[in-house]
């Protein structure tokens, strides 16, 4: 099944410098070309070959340790949930150390091998392979057991090979030889692997004491409960019931990312401007269109986007302190609280998409976010323009056919190295679209554009995260109104120009200009902006426009 799709992997930004003046692991600030003087050891990652792929199996290493690789050569064949694919290298060098052996499984994004630039560095790379596996918990230990997760080992063989711990009584199956053998049905085994339940600890309730699916499910549920009861559960995913006071809990990946972003934000001079907006008309509109699936969030996003369209400077972003970019599209990121974290799904082109589609999109994003299935491009879009193109092309379309050498000859594909952050600068949207259509067509197989995108952006995201520069949409909305919060202010996410904090809409007594006193629903919004590019008057006029749109919201449903 090889050769179905030749997907190149892109080694990450984690490059080691040899230069003595720099601490190991220091980031390379220059572009790749300039950095080429230094020797590098690059990690080869398990690529995401499909949008649903979470782990991949190494079918075979085409090259072995010590082999010289040249750009574009197949190095390894990876089996995903969909297909086997040849993975190529973008760099010349030597395959220094294989970290995941054939047959091993590694989760997407984890290192599977090291690539040394020169022969001399092979030893160094090998040492790195060993040390990285001992120093950090996530990269895989060497030979056979490769992936960080125990999924590496086939459960069936575990069940047979590993007797359960003495503490737990094994199945009472009469043929189980006092726990030496475990009899579990095929589905029970699959479930056990999925739910990470040790079959040896389960008492079978099936015929003759066999472990059946129900037993595994119950055991999994019980495990969660007991974790909660003991307070030893991983605080990461289910915090509310099982928080043990006085414990130190390491950040989850998501919390880590949030933390980085927040600290990063301190380097940006921000200021805030507030505004009170009457929402009677908006509320009335909402009542009318609610039945059509329109959400308040979508209405607010739409209104904001329409206002932004008139004030492009508020939708701009300053990245380097010397210049700023008028973003070509308006992508509204909306903060969503998750268990143990916060993410910001993005509504792309909110000014152009109609309110109904926007609402649908929003619902879909939230559902996915809650299920933690958001694709990188949906919650993290520093490369805003990329997102647009996803919507331009039918999701399941196959691109025209090209041969892989044609694809490799596209500068963009080469340029997608660890410095992928430069994407918007590197090429316009058209080139990008062209490039990934080619990418899809390389293996002449039906990989959806979606999947290719997920792949590109996953790499993108790694890079971005590695640099501590997790980016969000071009403008962010944060709404705490549903909690009754009447006003708050938000921290500006790095890489964007402004964020708007939306409070609850509540009835207020107001004096009108004609001297009467009346009741109006009012909502306070508070925009935080980057004062390097956005000035007070900009925000003020933006808010004025926004208020006029919300107070006369007929344009929202157009």
């Amino acid at each position, binding site marked *: 099944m090889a050769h179905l799709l030749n997907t190149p992997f892109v080694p990450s930004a984690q490059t080691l410098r040899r230069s003595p003046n720099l601490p190991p692991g220091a980031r390379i600030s220059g572009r790749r070309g300039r950095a080429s003087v230094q020797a590098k050891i690059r990690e080869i990652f398990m690529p995401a070959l499909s949008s649903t792929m979470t782990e991949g199996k190494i079918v075979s290493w085409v090259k072995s340790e010590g082999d010289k690789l040249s750009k574009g050569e197949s190095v390894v064949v990876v089996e995903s949930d969909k297909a*086997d694919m040849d993975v190529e290298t973008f760099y010349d060098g030597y395959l220094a150390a294989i970290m995941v052996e054939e047959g091993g499984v590694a989760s997407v994004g984890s290192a599977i091998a090291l690539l040394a630039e020169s022969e001399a560095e092979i030893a160094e790379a090998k040492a790195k392979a060993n040390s990285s596996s001992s120093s950090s918990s996530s990269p895989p230990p060497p030979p056979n057991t490769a992936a960080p997760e125990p999924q590496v080992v086939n459960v069936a063989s575990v069940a047979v090979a590993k007797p359960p711990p003495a503490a737990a009584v094994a199945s009472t199956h009469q043929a189980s030889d006092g726990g030496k053998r475990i009899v579990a049905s*095929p589905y029970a085994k699959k479930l056990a692997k999925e739910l990470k339940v040790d079959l040896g600890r389960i008492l079978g309730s099936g015929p003759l004491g066999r472990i*059946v699916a129900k037993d595994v499910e119950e055991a999994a549920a019980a495990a969660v409960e007991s974790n909660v009861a003991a307070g030893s559960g991983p605080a990461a995913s289910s915090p509310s019931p099982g928080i043990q006071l006085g414990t130190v809990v390491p950040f989850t990946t998501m919390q880590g990312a949030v933390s980085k972003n927040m600290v990063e934000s301190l380097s940006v001079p921000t200021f805030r401007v507030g505004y009170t907006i009457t929402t009677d008309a908006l509320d009335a509109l909402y009542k009318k269109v609610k039945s059509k699936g329109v959400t308040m969030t979508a209405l607010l996003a739409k209104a904001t986007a329409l206002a932004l369209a008139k004030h492009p400077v508020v939708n701009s972003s300053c990245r380097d302190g010397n210049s700023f970019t008028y973003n070509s599209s308006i992508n509204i990121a909306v903060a969503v609280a998750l268990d143990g974290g916060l993410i910001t799904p993005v509504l792309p082109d909110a000014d152009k998409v109609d309110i109904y589609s926007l609402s649908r999109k929003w619902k879909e994003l939230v559902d996915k976010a809650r299920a933690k299935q958001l694709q990188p491009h949906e919650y993290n879009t520093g490369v805003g323009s990329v997102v647009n193109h996803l919507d331009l092309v039918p999701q399941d379309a196959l691109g025209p056919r090209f041969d892989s050498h044609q694809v490799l000859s596209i500068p963009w594909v080469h340029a997608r190295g660890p410095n992928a952050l430069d994407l918007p600068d590197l090429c316009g949207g058209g080139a990008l679209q062209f490039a990934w259509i080619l990418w899809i067509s390389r293996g002449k197989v*039906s990989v959806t554009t979606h999947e290719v995108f997920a792949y590109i952006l996953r790499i993108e995201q790694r890079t971005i995260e590695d640099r501590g520069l997790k980016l969000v949409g071009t403008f962010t909305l944060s709404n705490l109104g549903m909690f009754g919060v009447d006003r708050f202010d938000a921290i500006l996410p790095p890489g964007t120009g402004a964020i708007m904090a939306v409070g609850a809409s509540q009835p207020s007594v107001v004096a009108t200009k004609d001297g009467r006193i009346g009741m109006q629903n009012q909502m306070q919004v508070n925009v935080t902006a980057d004062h390097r590019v956005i000035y007070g008057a900009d925000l003020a006029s933006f808010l004025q426009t926004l208020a006029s749109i919300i107070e006369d919201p007929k344009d929202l449903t157009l």
Partner: protein
Amino acid sequence: MQASLSLSVASHASPAALARSNHSSASFAPVNLRFCGLRREAFGFSDLKQSESRRVCPSSARRWKAAVSALASDNGSAPKSFDYDLLIIGAGVGGHGAALHAVEKGLKTAIVEGDVVGGTCVNRGCVPSKALLAVSGRMREFQTEHHLKALGLQVSAAGYDRQGVADHANNLATKIRNNLTNSMKALGVDILTGVGTILGPHKVKVGSSNVVTAKDVIIATGSVPFVPKGIEVDGKTVITSDHALKLEFVPDWIAIIGSGYIGLEFSDVYTALGSEVTFVEALDQLMPGFDPEIGKLAQRVLINPRKIDYHTGVFASKITPAKDGKPVTIELIDAKTKEPKETLEVDAALIATGRAPFTQGLGLENINVATQRGFIPVDERMRVIDANGKLVPHIYCIGDANGKMMLAHAASAQGISVVEQVTGRDHVLNHLSIPAACFTHPEISMVGLTEPQAREKADKEGFEISVAKTSFKANTKALAENEGEGLAKLIYRPDNGEILGVHIFGLHAADLIHEASNAIALGTRIQDIKFAVHAHPTLSEVLDELFKSAKVKAQVSSPVSEPVAV
């Protein structure tokens, strides 16, 4: 004649090919002859009616004319010295196909059946299994919520009545059996009931005493499920396909020994009906025999997401049926080292390790024929070979009993080929043009060589091969059905456009393969067939695209016939 000369230079020109080329040179422009010469084996049985007058060798034309004067329904007239022109032992699909064609050719024909008309296919094989698979396909659809949801459908919990399903299979078998019997009766084929035993040349005993004579005899006794040593079949918990098709119970957990197409189809049925399945496969890979790429993809769709696990590289050395409250036990040994590996305890075991030829009581010793691994040795014209390696005159063997290609339609094609020969037209069946299908959901089908086979052949004979693939995901009809999973694969010669093999995994693959198998049978080249038009939107466009994506260096071999203005 120029053409036949060039053909005989080509080393593998068979007589049939010559016959064909004779006719070709007579009726078509010489440019077509290229086709025949390049094919390794001679023509398949294509479109016999139409071709009769053209394909029969001149020497046999007279005889044929005599035959054609006989009406198809009067079953010929008795030859001088024999009771029948043709006697067929075994009324399965192979025998039936041969009998029908024999009558059409004016032969007085009888068919001997020791059991029930229809043989394995109709009574214990393809036919009832299709009934069960029809049920499993629907169950599967009803059970996959996300699939239904994507179509906007709502179906409340689907359930089934085991007896109802079993009855459907049984009724279908009965119906097809009656159709088969009636079709032969209507044509005047004598159906002789009893076990047929060959007493000598031209002489067959039917039942205990009735001896009939015939000019030619076709053995079409078929096969029975093969049960390896050490396995005790009780028909209840340790069963073969014969029992499984009766669907007397649906076990919670069934082990299927063998992951060929029989095992695969049953895994589809059982998992749809709620069973969990464990495959035991002696080879290192599941689904041996399929093109590896197709097999791998099929495994991703048909095995991995279902409630199925498997043990590969192991033999089931001993299987004991359930009794006294004990489950079925299966002892597994390593296929190579023969060391004991594991013991499985399951509710039932289905033995799907293949089929063994059935030749018991056939009296092969009377004609000095020794079976090879149970199969009756035959040459490429299905003529039986005796223990001394000589042809036994007037005795042929078709179908599973000769083991060439154990498929119902292959048997039938072989039978027709034999009838062609005994009526004076030499004929060699091109087995590489015979399609095969596995009716899982989605289906798998194939014709010709697998990729490794093609590569081996290419290496040996020094030509290049290429592979083209298309996905069902790009097919409108497949997407409309929300069944975009699938792959079609073409293995061909880029130099001359010859189709070496086509493999399809996807919705209705079994129905789609015939465009490819017909092309192989007729020698149609890719550069020609790619101009054939397919209705849009249909699944057949998968093959259309497949042919179009092939890169053939050769030019279109013949201009499309006279343009017709509309």
